[in-house]
């Protein structure tokens, strides 16, 4: 099939960007979306042009590096699928495709379709962990974890940190990302001692990075390649409220 692409090109963080038009010819339905772009880039290099910069690494939907807005939808039309696992059989001959980077003030563009998502790392550094320095851990089976608890924790822990939730959210909120980590660790017995501190610190960092607030549009869960439910945001809000009250009680006592 033959496709017309409109791709966002931007030389650097402060440069002005614009759409450029390219033709993708003889695209096989068994190609992945990124392989289609690889072929376009090969053609650009051979004809003396400048290849399109985009992020990708594992190309099996788990590293979270790929990040394309395809026709206005984060990761494109197939639900529960990262861009690298989107195959061209979901498009048809003659389609016109608009490709943009994630758009959010907390994710500045680095070049073309590449954005800076280091804000996510800083949210984790603020409290997205269980303090367990290496060595001295007790026998793994001495901590019993109910199967339902670990299954729910795993559903939240499946987050790949791609940022599609932020890109899809009209408010540019990182609540799904932050809520997923708060839920993963808060559902496990090991995560209890730091539960309040964790949610307070992570939410504070999320706000400091310039992400917007959650107003329950639900776009994030629709865009999430791991189909993480907005239940994690409810859990985060619940934990946050409890943590705020607990901190107040402590101050008043």
């Amino acid at each position: 099939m033959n496709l017309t692409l409109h791709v966002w090109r931007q030389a650097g963080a402060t440069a002005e960007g614009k759409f450029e038009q390219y033709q993708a010819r003889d695209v096989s339905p068994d190609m992945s979306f990124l392989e289609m772009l690889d072929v376009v880039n090969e053609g650009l290099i051979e004809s003396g042009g400048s290849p399109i910069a985009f992020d990708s690494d594992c190309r099996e939907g788990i590293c979270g590096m790929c990040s394309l807005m395809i026709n206005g939808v984060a990761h494109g039309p197939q639900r529960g699928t990262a861009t690298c696992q989107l195959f061209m059989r979901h498009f048809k001959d003659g389609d016109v495709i608009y490709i943009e980077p994630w758009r959010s003030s907390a994710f500045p563009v680095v070049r073309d379709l590449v954005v800076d998502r280091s804000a996510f790392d800083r949210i984790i550094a603020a409290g997205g962990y269980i303090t367990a320095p290496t060595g001295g851990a007790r026998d793994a089976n001495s901590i019993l974890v109910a199967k339902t608890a670990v299954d729910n924790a795993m559903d939240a822990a499946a987050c790949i940190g791609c940022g599609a939730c932020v890109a899809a959210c009209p408010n540019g909120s990182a609540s799904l990302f932050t809520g997923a980590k708060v839920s993963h660790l808060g559902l496990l017995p090991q995560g209890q001692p730091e539960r309040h501190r964790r949610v307070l610190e992570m939410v504070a960092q999320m706000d400091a990075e310039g992400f917007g607030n959650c107003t329950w549009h639900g776009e994030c869960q629709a865009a999430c390649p791991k189909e993480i439910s907005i239940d994690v945001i409810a859990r985060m809000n619940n934990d946050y409220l409890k943590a705020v009250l607990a901190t107040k009680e402590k101050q008043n006592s």
Partner: protein
Amino acid sequence: MSMELNSREPGGPIEKQWEKHRFEMKLVNPANKRKHTILVVGSGLAGGSAAASLAELGYNVKCFCFQDSPRRAHSIAAQGGINAAKNYQNDGDSIYRLFYDTVKGGDFRSRESNTYRLAEISLNIIDQCVAQGVPFAREYGGLLANRSFGGAQVSRTFYARGQTGQQLLLGAYQALERQVGLGRLKMIPRTEMLDLVVIDGKARGIVVRDLVTGAVTSHAGDAVVLASGGYGNVFYLSTNAKGSNCTAAWRAYKRGAAFANPCYTQIHPTCIPQSGEHQSKLTLMSESLRNDGRVWVPKQKDDKRPPNQIPHSERDYYLERRYPAFGNLVPRDVASRAAKKACDEGYGVGPGGLGVYLDFADAIKRLGEQTIRERYGNLFEMYERITDEDPYKVPMRIYPAVHYTMGGLWVDYNLMSTIPGLHVAGEANFSDHGANRLGASALMQGLADGYFIIPYTIGDYLATNTLEKVDESHAAFKEAERCVEERTRRLLSIDGKRTVDSFHRELGKVMWDYCGMARNEAGLKHALQRIPEIREEFWSNVNVPGSDAELNQALEKAGRVSDFLELGELIVRDALDRRESCGAHFREEFQTPDGEALRDDEHYAYVAAWEYKGDDNTPALHKEPLTYEYVHLAQRSYK
């Protein structure tokens, strides 16, 4: 000056060696630790866990990765699980049995002392990861669940659905980010190591390129930990991430670190077959699928009937037939060769006859679709997304693909290379797996190295060596920066006709055809002639667009491929030198009458460590003899 390969094994009874060694190693006073800077290259299971643990101890740590975040390292893609000799299943497992299985699985080409320590530490790893909140699968009673993997007759693999690598990596990543938050660790992403700086014979720093601005800078330190992963992408198509590369390890080799057993490259039996020329990478389907999936091909050649219309009596379940004791759970090298044999003889299925079936129909009938969905749901979905076929209804088609490299930089028992101060961890080193790695052992080794070995052995190195004060203004850093900038300028100035990828594909095809699942002398000699020709054309006809002062992904690739073009030759040279078959290294001239690998322990029970002698000279081969005091050398049998 000849290179010395001192393995520094502690000696004594094997079950006491690590304990004894830990006691004998010197310690660094807590107040002095923060005066030492340690540079960690790579943020996967080995690098991430080492960086976090070293920072926890109080060292000043800088960690580098080429991705935008340390959480992206390719360890994240490991699916099936991590081994540990916990014997929670009461099925007869023990440290000794895991040690034995690993040495045997590696076809008796690994160091006994290292492998025993790995099995011993496996217990601590599971404890550590559970403490961090890794959501391993549980039974209803709340205890940890296990599954089986190839090459073992016990159930010792811990897992988190089909995303075990992801969950373990996130555990290490969170520990690392905690140290970043505490200000003890500086994480430097989107940065690539391009040279190692050796001063007075010791590793004292690295030269890196900032992939966003293109700036080339130096970082001085008291020790360097290379945890930069494997070199499977030398084959172009592999299950590795697109960015996985050999550059950091290769540049260290060219500064004097010996490269060991480069020809031991693992071909994983269960990957999704290639669909066309545009293919950019291959996708693995976890080995855990062989717990419930049965491998078969039609008994009739070129059978074009859909699989569901081929009756049981006309199917050849060849692994169960040839290896009744282990059946579908034979080790990877054995399963891969058996699939190749079936396809070479004309029994293959799917496009081009390059595939065999992995069938879940019997397991679904026995256990119900729901159970299979719980065990492998995400893998089945991934398969369907890629192939557009539903494995709950039709058998998967699979074919072997390059997956892991057992070879790597040579290290001693302390995981230190032949350059003092340069430690190497995880897939980047050669230790522990011999000529073939068992499934679910890569995660185990990466975390053993990073959490539990490097933090001790680095301390011993720092405590027993006097290190002159060195900073980035030293002439050696300036010289290395100049070399890096010169190489970049050269790549950009060629302005030829062919893209970097076209050279990479060409190299990959030579490697796969002549140095892949089966190798022979004539083919290897042909490859040894072809690779320098491809390299020569690369340096005169490659087209690398753009400049060195910007984000330039074509330039990044060009640098990596230029190194693969050199490493490829060394791999072939090593494969040619090893005139025996062992593990993943299968020389067609050396096989038993029934087609199994035929080792030659008398002449080849050694680690081949190659020393760089200059671009225009043949590298020198050094041999570290392997002796077996505990495991009885025997022909590996899974029948």
